[in-house]
C-alpha cells in the first residue's frame, strides 16, 4: 500500500478527479443544470464543476507535497523519482484536463 501511495498517489487522485468531473457533468446535464444561467455566461453546471476541479487540484498538490518529503524508510532513488513524476503528472493532468470546466457550460 505504501508503495502504491508513493508511486502513483498523484495519478490516483487524477483518476478520481477526472472521473468525478465527467460524472458530475453527466449528472448535471441529466438534471438540466446546463440551461440554468446563473452568472454572466456561467451556468449552474459551471458552479458544480469548477469547485470540484479546484478541490481535486488541491488534493493532487497535497499528495505531491507528502510524497516528496524526504526520509521515507527504504527510500530508493528510483521510487522517489517515479513518484515525483507521477505526482506532477497528477497535478498537470487535473489542471489541464479539468480546465474545460471554465468554458460556459451547456449540454450540447
Amino acid at each position, binding site marked *: 500500500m505504501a508503495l502504491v501511495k508513493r508511486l502513483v498517489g498523484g495519478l490516483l487522485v487524477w483518476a478520481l478527479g477526472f472521473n468525478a468531473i465527467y460524472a458530475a457533468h453527466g449528472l448535471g446535464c441529466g438534471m438540466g443544470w446546463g440551461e440554468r444561467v446563473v452568472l454572466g455566461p456561467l451556468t449552474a453546471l459551471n458552479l458544480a464543476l469548477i469547485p470540484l476541479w479546484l478541490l481535486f487540484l488541491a488534493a493532487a498538490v497535497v499528495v505531491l507535497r507528502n510524497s516528496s518529503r524526504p526520509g521515507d524508510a527504504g527510500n530508493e532513488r528510483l521510487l522517489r523519482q517515479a513518484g515525483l513524476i507521477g505526482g506532477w503528472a497528477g497535478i498537470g493532468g487535473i489542471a489541464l484536463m479539468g480546465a*474545460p470546466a471554465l*468554458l*460556459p457550460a*451547456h449540454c*450540447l
Partner: protein
Amino acid sequence: MFPIVGLGLVGAGCSGPLSALDPAGPAAGGIFTLMSVLLALATLSFVVIFGLFLLALRRNRGHSVSLRLFLIGGGLVFPLSLLTVATVYAVVLGERITGARETPALTVEATAQQWRWQFTRQMPSGSVSRTDILDIPAGRTVAVMVSSDDVIHSFWVPRLGGKIDAIPGTRNRILIRADVPGRYGGVCAEFCGVGHTQMSFAVVAHDAAAWDRLEQGGQP
C-alpha cells in the same frame, strides 16, 4: 506523408463530391483551417524528432549529453507548448461549430433506417418528407435533428461539416450551412449492416427564390 497530402491539396485531387478538402460551409471551412494548422505542427514535430534520430545515427561516436535538455526540453516543454496551441484552438472552434448560442433558421428531422434517410420539415402547409434528399436554404443555418429507427447510423456531409451519429432512442443535433446553392453529397459513416455502402444521400441547397417556392408548397 505530409508532403504527399500537401501535393494532394494543391493538385486537382482535393476536390470531389465528398471531399472534406473542398469545404462549402462555415463548419467544414473552420475544420479545414484547423487541419492545416495541425498539419503544420505535425510536420514540424516530425522533422525535429526524426531529424534528431537521423543525426544521432550519423554521429556514431560517444558523446556526453544533457539529459535535462533532452527530457525536460524535448520531452515536456516541446510537446506541451505545441499541444496547448492546438487544443485551445480546437476547443474554441468546437464551441463555435456546436453553436450553443446560435438560433437556426430552420429545423429538420433526419431519421435513419436500414438503409435510407428520411428528412422531414415542418412547412406552413404541413410536414414535408423526402427520402435521401435534404432540402435546405443556402446561406442559412439549419439544425438537423438526427435519430434512428433501428441501428446506429451517422449523418455526414463532408463538404458542409463533421458528422453526428443517428442513435435509436436519442435525438442529436448538428448545425449545417451551405454558403452557395448546390448539391452536396452525404453518406452514412457508421457501419450499419449489409446496406451500409449504399446508404448515401444528398443535401440540396436552394437559392432564396427556389426556397420560397418550396415554402409555398411547390415541388423542387
